[in-house]
């Protein structure tokens, strides 16, 4: 019995060390622009429940800005204030919104638009399940034919009933940041290709 317990303990510790290993694995470096590039970043959250348009939580904006900075892009955040919300409410299609951003930030060489729509799904196994639908569009401001787009849905299971769209979007942050990073790598890599 003693041997069995020692063997079990050894197996447990061994597996624990293996479990730690993924955290130490090297990450693939991001694709960097040749020169620092001014980039307009806009994240718009649409609450399906009441139709409100608003900015993303600060933590998500910060995470996305870090992804831009890692690629030698200089982010300039476009907040969704009342005027921007009205503009986006009037322009419901992505091309119209990108055009509005290009005009609003004439100094930006790149445009990154993240449109997130958050909708309640159901209660399941003690959680409050939401769906975050996201479309990421990144493009040179001067040539939208080179735009790169990604569309995806992120399931989010919130712990508390009072947590709503902003928290759902924040919880979806790691997935969104990863997708934005992928889109930026495609765009920046293509732009700097010989």
């Amino acid at each position: 019995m003693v041997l069995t317990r020692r063997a079990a303990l050894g197996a447990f510790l061994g597996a624990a060390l293996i479990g730690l290993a993924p955290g130490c694995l090297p990450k693939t470096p991001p694709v960097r622009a040749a020169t620092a590039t001014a980039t307009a970043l806009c994240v718009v959250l649409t609450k399906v429940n009441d139709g409100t348009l608003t900015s993303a939580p600060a933590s998500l904006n910060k995470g996305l800005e870090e992804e831009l900075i890692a690629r030698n892009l200089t982010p300039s955040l476009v907040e969704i204030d009342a005027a921007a919300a009205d503009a986006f409410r009037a322009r419901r299609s992505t091309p119209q919104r990108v055009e509005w951003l290009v005009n609003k930030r004439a100094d930006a060489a790149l445009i990154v638009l993240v449109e997130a729509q958050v909708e309640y799904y159901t209660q399941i196994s003690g959680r409050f399940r939401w769906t975050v639908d996201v479309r990421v569009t990144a493009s040179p401001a001067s040539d939208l034919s080179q735009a790169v787009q990604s569309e995806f849905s992120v399931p989010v299971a919130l712990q508390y009933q009072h947590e709503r769209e902003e928290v759902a979007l924040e919880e979806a942050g790691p997935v969104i940041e990863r997708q934005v990073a992928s889109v930026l790598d495609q765009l920046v890599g293509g732009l700097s290709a010989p």
Partner: protein
Amino acid sequence: MSESILRRSLILSGLFALSAASAPDAIAGRAEVGGYFRVSARPDLQGGNGRLGYWNLYGRLMNEGSYAAVEMKFDVLERQPLAKDPWTSLHLRIEGGSVSNADAGNGYLNNYRVSQLYARAGNVLLPDVTWQVGTLDMFMGELGMYDMRPAQIFFDTVGLSARYEKGPVDLLLGVGDSGYWQRGASYHAMPTAGGYLRMRLGSHVELGGGGQYRFQPMTEGHRFAPHNTPGVAYEDYLRQEVTERWFEENPNELRDFPNPVPTSAQSGQLIGYLGFGGLGPLRWNNTFVRYEKMHPQLSTTETYEGTSYTIYTNDLTDERTMLLLGNEMQLRLIPQRLDVVWAALYGQHQDGDNDIAPSDHDRWYASTVLRTQIYLNDTVHLLVESSVAREVSLNGNAYREHADSIFASEGGLPDTRGLEYGDTDTRDTWQGKTGIVFNPLGPGVYVRPSLRLLYGVQHSNQNNAFGSAFVDTQDQFADFKSVERHWHHLGSLEMEAWF
């Protein structure tokens, strides 16, 4: 061509190339799926069936088995966020507690059921109201450490509900029928009504309350309607000796066993909720209370001299109540480094009809669980959890402290007519769990998916206090002998995810 014209023409040509779709709306006809999975490998070298203790009073971690739930949603009419058009979605949930190779059920579909089926619709008749037709299950939150939802209503109901949500107000009203969940194949209508009101008071406090009421009418001539068999003593009912006693006392009335007398039955629950948080390291604190009057049982069957008799038991089971009080507090002590969740639970079950035998309806229990999660890096975390619990039977002994407990009860003499069980009325349990958690999505006690490698240990004053196939007989001719064991060790490799 000037530079500005060139720029504008490039933009316009690019806009045509961009997806012409509108912002990422829900799509009409879109089918979506969400759900919950939990599966584990827990080979138990001490002979248990893969759970550390008997139930999740000691914390859900390592005390629950495999589980899968999948809910499909179909958008018949998509919800347009910037318009107030009617919308409708259909939902179907299938769930159950078995996965192939992970438990005794081996994942066979007879372990699963269609637990939810409903249609939701909005912007119909009233603004800000969501209508739901079908199953109506609803809760105001969960004690995550225990996997318990005290503030839950309509779990057993199919019908219609209307939920009004605007600003700080969340009001739910519903009506329906709970007969099939409560009675199954012995269905008899059980009209149900209830609801809750949840209010957000400022940005840090929430308050809620509600309830549900069930009524089962008297229906003469319906064998599944509530009835009472007259003249039944509770002890005879417990011992399954009602018919034997009656025929002893009425030897000349062999064909005249008393007919059942129709009656009505009612039950229900009151729920309460207080939430507060967003204050310093306190992320949120949930307090739930539930007071429930259980629905009376229909009947029991006895066989006497080859003939089966149905004993109707409404009045023998209509005083069962449960009080459940729970609290859970989530603290972010060192952001991105250390989170703590503390939870406590108190339950009291009372059966006003039963003063003579221990049962799950006559007991109280209290428990507390503390989970600490240390973030070694973004994805690899160290989990440490401990719980202590006490369960006390209110009607005498209910637990076996020793393998030979039969000799320790009733002054060392076995009582073959005794209604107690074991040699103590109290079960004390301590559990400790620790291990490595891999969370691909980053830090957070409740962030999922979680892949866990855990070790758990339990000490209980009850002998072999975990599910097993051990022999507990003291028969001297038994092939297998019972063994004294109060410590239980278990390793677990498991996964849990919502999606």
